[in-house]
């Protein structure tokens, strides 16, 4: 019974997504709103402001460097958390 409910719910969610995706722009349209506001400025100014031809690296490390710093701290926290959860001394306090 559980699986039938789960199937019905996921089909309903899928149909809702299909209905809302029918109003999206066409695939690989050059005039869609995702590529109109900020990203032409990044592409045109990346060589004259930073002399780095790779637009992805210059956006990741220079224009959006704050996000990259916190994402590095996220993966550091995950490493520390796995260390803390799994390495416990059984009996007696081992440093």
């Amino acid at each position, binding site marked *: 019974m559980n699986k039938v409910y789960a199937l019905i719910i*996921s089909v309903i969610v899928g149909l809702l997504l299909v209905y809302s995706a029918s109003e999206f722009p066409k695939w690989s*349209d050059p005039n869609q709103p995702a590529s109109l506001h900020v990203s032409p400025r990044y592409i045109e100014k990346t060589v004259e402001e930073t002399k780095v031809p790779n637009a992805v690296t210059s956006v990741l490390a220079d224009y959006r460097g704050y996000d990259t710093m916190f994402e590095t701290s996220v993966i550091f926290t995950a490493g520390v958390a796995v260390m803390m959860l799994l390495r416990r001394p059984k009996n007696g306090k081992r440093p």
Partner: protein
Amino acid sequence: MFEMILSKYNYWMYILLIMVGFYGMMAKNNLMKKLIGMNIFQWSIILYYISIGAKKGGTVPIIMDTHSAAGQAIRAIDYINPLPHVLMLTAIVVGVATTGIALTLLIIIYKKYGTLEEDEVIEVLKK
């Protein structure tokens, strides 16, 4: 009507993958299979975002011939959108961190209860 289906077929494919991952998360009994369903969900959303950044007739966003760009302007219509690629790099790393910690929790649950099936764990917890 038929052209609307055919011109946006990337959305239909990724919505199918999202539904598969969502069903796997809810309906399966084993905790490991739920984790795999969550992983499928995560990666299909990343693929969906990357498919948004495509442009017809555009190429990889690495600016070629920078030395002759002093006389010639760089047109943004020649290169695809770099922003979804950048944001999804962060999302991929966050997904890897989440999977690592979830596998750790599964090891601890197995050590403590001896089983990975969800209903048996809930039975032991109720007592």
